[in-house]
């Protein structure tokens, strides 16, 4: 069977298509999904292309089922993924909490839309808290927040590898703007860039006869005693803390001498970067820090930059979700933190410039 992408090529497409192509390139074997805007074209493109490359798709009855069937696919040893948005992400938290507890490396692409409730199908960054910490759990997850189509492609591929290497559920946090935006990017076969795909392995039906030449896999998420659960969670916590430094990613733009540090993630960081560019032309000492991984969070790195600055401004299309993350990680830092919140609305370069000028 031919590869979906030979080598590398420059293309022009929407973010949702980017995800479908990236999943194909990453060797994802099956997608489980349920329709919701603005996620639909991931399924549309996956279902158009998957049969050509021997990949599968199941449209389920709801997102609860899409999430749980996805865990089933992973347990069968396949690179399996799903995608959702908004109220679908809410339903998805139940299966993702099971994935967290049982260390099932699911990959979930989130196309954030307005919230709470049905709200709009358009855009927001209001699923940040839920994607990082949703479900009844501790947020032992890996969350990549992307800003460009290139990142969407790169990190969708990476998500499969991170998930299978560390066995924590992994999320690519996009949004409705990225889903629908059109821009150019390079798509590639991971091999062409020497990216080795981490092998997926079955958790069950691994060969042999259980009870005869191997023990049966008895996988559970239910425990009896407080102490028993405590041990399991602490094991997860220790493991998560240990691997965090290997996973953490962030981007700094003109941070070296920045008096004002703009913190933004995802598509909003494009506006922050643009504003820094513009203000730097006027000689203003402004920099931008973008956490790429929201879980685990680049705490040390941000703390260092924040301490050196005179003012931090958190900019987001939500009412304080990134802000909470930032504040919890900047504990002990005395630099004042200001906010620019536009819940459910896009943020432009001009707005950021104007807002930043208040602190210059």
């Amino acid at each position: 069977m031919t590869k979906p992408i030979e080598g590398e090529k420059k293309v022009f497409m929407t973010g949702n298509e980017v995800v479908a192509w990236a999943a194909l390139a990453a060797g994802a074997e099956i997608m489980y999904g349920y329709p919701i805007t603005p996620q639909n074209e991931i399924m549309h493109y996956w279902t158009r292309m998957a049969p050509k490359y021997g990949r599968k798709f199941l449209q389920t009855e709801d997102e609860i089922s899409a999430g749980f069937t996805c865990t089933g696919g992973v347990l069968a040893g396949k690179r399996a993924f799903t995608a959702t948005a908004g109220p679908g992400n809410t339903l998805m938290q139940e299966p993702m909490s099971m994935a967290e507890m049982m260390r099932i490396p699911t990959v979930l692409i989130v196309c954030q839309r307005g919230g709470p409730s049905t709200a709009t199908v358009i855009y927001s960054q209001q699923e940040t808290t839920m994607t990082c910490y949703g479900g009844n759990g501790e947020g032992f997850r890996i969350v990549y927040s992307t800003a460009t189509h290139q990142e969407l492609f790169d990190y969708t591929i990476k998500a499969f590898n991170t998930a299978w290497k560390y066995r924590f559920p992994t999320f690519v946090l996009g949004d409705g703007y990225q889903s629908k935006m059109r821009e150019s990017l390079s798509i590639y076969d991971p091999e062409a860039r020497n990216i080795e795909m981490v092998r997926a392995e079955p958790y069950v039906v691994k060969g042999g006869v259980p009870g005869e030449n191997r023990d049966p896999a008895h996988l559970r998420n239910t425990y009896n005693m407080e102490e028993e659960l405590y041990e399991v969670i602490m094991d997860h916590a220790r493991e998560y803390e240990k691997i965090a430094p290997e996973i953490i990613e962030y981007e700094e733009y003109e941070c070296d001498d920045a008096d004002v540090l703009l913190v933004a993630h995802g598509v909003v960081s494009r506006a922050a970067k643009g504003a820094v560019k513009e203000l730097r032309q006027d000689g203003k000492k402004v920099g931008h820090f973008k956490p790429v991984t929201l879980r685990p969070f680049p705490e040390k790195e941000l703390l260092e930059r924040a301490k050196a600055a005179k003012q931090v401004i958190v900019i987001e299309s939500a009412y304080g979700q990134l802000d909470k993350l930032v504040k919890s990680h900047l504990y002990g830092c005395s630099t004042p933190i200001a906010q620019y919140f536009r819940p459910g609305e896009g943020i432009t370069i001009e707005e950021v410039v104007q807002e930043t000028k208040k602190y210059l």
Partner: protein
Amino acid sequence: MSVQPQMPKSWRSETKPHKFCPGCGHPLILKALGEVIDELNIADRTVFGCDIGCSLLAWDFFNVDTIQTHHGRTTPVIVGLRRANENVIGIAYMGDGGGYAIGSQHLVNSAARDEKVFVLLANNTQYGMTGGQMAPTTLPGQKTETSPYGRDTELTGPPVQGPEMVAAISGENAYVARGTVGNVRQLKKFIKKAIQNVMEGRGFAFVEALSLCPTNWRTNAEDTWKFVEKDMATYFKVGEIKVPGEKKEG
């Protein structure tokens, strides 16, 4: 001299005696299932999924790969697994709350999509593990912790007819039956036909087993059997409801 009780080979002796209540119906169902797994020699490719509710006590019951999932979500986990690996014989085991209440959308849609999985459901007319609350299958007038004056069908509807519903919405190659722990030989026959149906890739398979819950029914042995064989049988007709290839007149 101690005599070991006869156990199916696919039962895991290390986890016996099992953890179900004395007089529980689950071990009878699981014995029938275990014997079928032995007879068909499929322990190496069977994945047994169990739900929340008393069925989860079966999480280490078999020498078979087992996944204990969430309440109502065993069906989609097993469906997802079977979709990803067609060699797997997927069995989703649950109670009436898991199958007919919290997980009903999964049962309905898996049946409608004709997923090649076997759903085995124990019907004991209430939520056993949480302390005996009303379930979709609770009989009219039956007292439970959340129907303390007896189930009022005006307020809460009649008992759900699960297999009849599944038969109505599934494809013509689905296998659907209702057995009872009062007739394990027959129940085992239904389970075997159900597993063969998915093994041969024909279609969905569903068996409801009328089960026993003396603990929550607060019944002695005699009344326990009377409840399943008389009271439950009044509402839930035992027998095969849909058999692939069987042409029916009328």
